[in-house]
């Protein structure tokens, strides 16, 4: 049987074709356009499932194909695709979430006059994200990396008339582009340092993984850190995390698809793909682990003090991506990818659930919600499962993957473990706060809440099932997932300590949240009354945005104004001066042309003397 992997390139082609068709049809496509997009994503999903099935059954070889995109003399720049276990897993994750989000958006975006544009952008995003996943070398990946970025930008700014959406879209693009510069320079470095200018992952693996010493450690570290800069931008890691919460200005299905499940995980995927480079440099590994751990706890604390339902989830995403980076930094690709896998489901679920709530009550402020559990039963139940999965409550998916990350962290350094555990506690706490404020208690808003239509709740149910069960692919008692993914048998250690501690902090967080926000036995202002400064610091997100505004944006604006003056007065001024002196000389010469013969003779005489002196002078030279 021929391998289906040979046709893997078709997976992104379907949504790409849908994008082309929808763009050509323009706004006239209307709701028919929505179905074209959904259908394309369904076909991609089926094909991905078939490919992954073949890989799971172990009947197919890894497959890679490429062609010369640009040829310059002896230099060729190929692009191509590759199917491995890792990529087939990502294919399924992306196409599955993409299909569910497409379906969900049928309901969520129903009344938007630009619905076909929306589905066109989503299709373009899916195509680009799938291309990114399938890339066989860094150049291909960079191309799609930028394309998913631009789709994210387009969709964040989808409601373009809102100035906040415009600002958020701009910020998302520019901040991630800082990271992209790092990735670009890393590619340039690799191009010139790799033997034969090869940029494909197989050769990277060979050069950095097996035949070490071809490239010096210093350069390796530099390359790894520059690649990591790209990942930091895309995956919203500190200090480039600022764009992700603002990106919540986009429609909620987009937040689920792009800013929770797929694109923001691309940074983690990138590091996993180029892991051999990182592995060859301890300094780079430490950087990844420290940034990851710091981001995990940093964002979790901010999440405690936000009131916008989507922003809480956004900071949660930043924090969870930090966990994945931490796992990579301590050397466990399988734990990182496992957490990426489960997080895609439960975080997409949470965002779509939040969308269902927003769709119903038309506000995003959790202080104006409450008591929705009774009137939105499916949403409440599925959201609850997602929240518990994120909080790491056994036996839901998030528990197993967080457990894997924490186990790896404990192997790395006790500090990473402690940070991870504390962040897990905060996670459980802010999710409990969110859940109880929204679904428990009495209604605080005046909106007439109602359950969303089936087209929106079915995706919730599917994702809830996955959020509950997806963790069983890899438990401390069953490690085939990691082995299948990385090709290396991981040493099994069912660390009782980790299981107990992480379960305990998860339950503690949920319980505390329940006490404060549902039962009310602990007063809500218990912290804010004693430490108003801390709460304010968290509410203002540690003032990072303000810091950037005054340290980077303002000085650059100043420089720009300075250069305007420079361009006008110095550069152009010199030209004007030259022009004026030319006309001044002209006027002087006009004065010589006075008509007085004496004047002419005098001038001629002076000229003659100068000439004579010049000739005489030359002789002595």
């Amino acid at each position, binding site marked *: 049987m021929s391998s289906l992997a040979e046709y893997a390139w078709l997976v992104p082609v379907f949504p790409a074709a849908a994008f082309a068709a929808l763009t050509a049809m323009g*706004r006239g496509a209307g709701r028919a356009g929505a179905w074209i997009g959904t259908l394309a994503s369904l076909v991609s999903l089926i094909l991905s499932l078939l490919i992954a099935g073949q890989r799971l059954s172990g009947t197919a070889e890894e497959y890679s194909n490429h062609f010369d995109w640009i*040829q310059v003399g002896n230099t060729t720049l190929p692009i191509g695709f590759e199917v491995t276990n890792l990529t087939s897993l990502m294919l399924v994750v992306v196409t599955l979430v993409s299909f569910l989000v497409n379906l969900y958006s049928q309901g969520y975006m129903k009344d938007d006059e630009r619905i076909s544009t929306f589905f066109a952008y989503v299709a373009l995003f899916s195509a680009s994200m799938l291309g990114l996943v399938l890339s066989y070398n860094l150049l291909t990946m960079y191309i799609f990396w930028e394309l998913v970025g631009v789709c994210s930008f387009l969709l964040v700014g989808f409601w*373009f008339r809102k100035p906040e959406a415009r600002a958020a*879209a701009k910020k998302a693009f520019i901040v991630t582009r800082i990271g992209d510069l790092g990735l670009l320079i890393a590619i340039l470095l690799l191009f010139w340092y790799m033997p034969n200018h090869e940029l494909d992952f197989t050769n990277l693996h060979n050069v950095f993984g097996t035949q070490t010493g071809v490239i010096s450690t210093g350069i390796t570290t530099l390359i790894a850190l520059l690649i990591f800069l790209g990942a930091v931008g895309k995956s919203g890691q500190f200090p480039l995390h600022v764009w992700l919460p603002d990106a919540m200005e986009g429609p909620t299905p987009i937040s689920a698809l792009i800013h929770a499940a797929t694109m923001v995980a691309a940074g983690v995927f990138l590091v996993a793909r180029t892991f051999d480079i990182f592995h060859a440099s301890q300094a780079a590994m430490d950087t990844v682990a420290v940034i990851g751990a710091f981001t995990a706890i940093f964002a979790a604390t901010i999440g405690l003090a936000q009131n916008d339902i989507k922003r809480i989830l956004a900071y949660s995403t930043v924090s969870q991506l930090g966990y994945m980076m931490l796992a990579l930094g301590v050397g466990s690709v399988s734990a990182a990818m496992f957490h990426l896998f489960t997080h895609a489901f439960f975080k997409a679920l949470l965002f779509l659930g939040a969308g269902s709530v927003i769709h119903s009550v038309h506000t995003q402020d959790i202080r104006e919600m409450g008591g929705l559990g009774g009137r939105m039963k499916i949403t409440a139940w599925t959201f609850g499962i997602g929240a518990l999965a994120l909080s790491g409550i056994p036996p839901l998916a998030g528990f197993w993957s967080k457990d894997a990350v924490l186990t790896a962290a404990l192997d790395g350094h006790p500090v990473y473990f402690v940070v991870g555990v504390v962040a897990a506690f905060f996670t459980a706490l802010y999710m409990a706060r969110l859940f109880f404020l929204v679904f428990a208690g009495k209604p605080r808003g005046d909106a007439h809440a109602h359950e969303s239509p089936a087209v929106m709740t079915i995706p919730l149910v599917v994702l809830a099932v996955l959020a509950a069960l997806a963790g069983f692919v890899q438990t401390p008692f069953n490690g085939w997932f990691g082995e299948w993914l990385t090709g290396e048998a991981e040493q099994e250690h069912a660390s009782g300590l980790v299981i107990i501690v992480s379960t305990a902090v998860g339950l503690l967080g949920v319980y505390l949240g329940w006490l404060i926000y549902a039962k009310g036995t602990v007063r809500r202002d218990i912290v804010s009354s004693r430490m108003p400064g801390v709460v304010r610091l968290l509410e203002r997100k540690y003032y990072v945005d303000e810091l950037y505004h005054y340290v980077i944006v303002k000085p650059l*604006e100043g420089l*720009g104004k300075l250069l305007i003056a420079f361009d006008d007065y110095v*550069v152009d001024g010199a030209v004007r001066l030259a022009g004026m002196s030319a006309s001044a000389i002209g006027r002087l010469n006009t004065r010589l042309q006075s008509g007085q013969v004496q004047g002419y003779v005098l001038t001629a005489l002076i000229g003659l003397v100068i000439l004579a002196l010049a000739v005489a002078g030359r002789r002595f030279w």
Partner: protein
Amino acid sequence: MLENIPVLSLILLSPLAGALLVLLLPGQRSVWLRAAALVFTLIPLALTLCLFAAYRPGVGGAAFTEHYTWLSVPLNKEMINAKSLSIAFDYHLAVDGISLPLLLLSAIVSAMALLASVHIRKRWKTFYSLFLLLETGMYGVFLARDLIEFFIFFELTLIPMFFLIGIWGYYGREKAATRFLVYNGLGSAAMLLAFLILIATAGFTAVQGADGYTVQFSGSYDVLLKNLADPQSYANNASEEMAGLGVFLSDNLKWAAFILLLVAFGIKIPIFPLHTWMLRVHTEAPPSVVMIHSGVLLKMGVYGLIRFGAALFPAQLADWSTVIAVLGVINILYGAVLACVQKEFKLVLAYSSISHMGIVLLGIASLHEVGLQGAVFQSVSHGLISALLFLLVGSLYERTGTTQLGELGGLAKSVPFLSGILLTAGLASLGLPGLSGFVGEFLAFLGLFGSMKGMTAVGVLGILFAAVYILRSVLGITFGPLQERCADIKDARFVEALPMITLTALIVLLGVYPSILTDVMQHGFVGLLEHFQQRTGG
């Protein structure tokens, strides 16, 4: 098929014929005038496309060449002991991998700019005849292989341009036209001086016959290339009998010629600090003329720098590659930072052009095939993108009466098509992969990175600023609340949409399938690179 007809001459001269025809038509019949101008613009476009399709890298250049002696002036042969002594200038047209992409760019942008000239409201007859004359000048620049011939065509672009700016421009048009002429006149003077130095020294050939030498000075590019590549042969050849001529090109003279050429073409590109004239042209000239100016005329500087600066003086270029790279980085960052703080959209685009041309300089400074191809690719790509952007500027100004960023906003609501194209053009300009801008930038950076890593890394910062100034201005115009003056305007008409779609399609094509252009360029740099290897020792 094309081998049997003088296709290059047809490309060159058909706009000239069109200009004469336009002069014969009645001046009030704008439709006739437009139709005639369009026909005589589409003829060279069609021919150039055929040429592009028929061109085979490596052999194609030789298949399409036209060479006639234009004038030959006998000199006083008593000066030396030779059978005859003359100075000759030829009508010599040819294409290669460097000029063909730019020739095609000129033909495409001309046709699109002509379509965009619907917004011209007065003196159609003069406008279209000057426009066609300008076309002949551009084609001539890219086709000419004789120094004097090149110079004449280069000058031929200046005069129509001067009037096109000065008559049909905006409020400050006359000042802008004067500034344009003064700067470019200075550039031309420098170029002429350099050319004369070259002709008087390296343009020398001596053929030994039975009864003595036949000696000739010529402006032939091929002769110069051969002589400069192998200075011993022509200097020794002329040994005793012709010692009196002093034809040897000393190093000092070489440097003088090289720097003169750098100044001449640096004004055109433009290189900081010689750029202020082009800001005025960008803001004051009518948009369809700026399409040509920004799309093609700036690239004449790039072409000249590669054709004459790099190919004739590889050693000087190699010595000064760091200088060129520094100038490139200054262009990139200076232009980019200034583009970020402008309040007028046309100035954003003007400074953005300066920034993008800096990337071209980096490609040239790389002395590497990848970088040089990147420089030409970037030139073509920027030509298409800036033509598209100024096409949009024209359409927006027609509708809103302003291009001030503060007075525009929310256009995506009222004119979704124009806004969509503007966004696409902006994304192409900021180097989004999948669109042409990325390929040129990437190749230029890749080429330079091999020799100057730190410099490239600083230059790469430019693409971050590009994101800032493009998004700031494009989103400012199209996103956000709808401004009152933008509310009741209509989307693009067919005659406007046609060039917009064409240019967008080309930008996408080059971005997705760059080989269509790079394959043609394949052998364009072979000779030049051999020079580098020969002269710089690898």
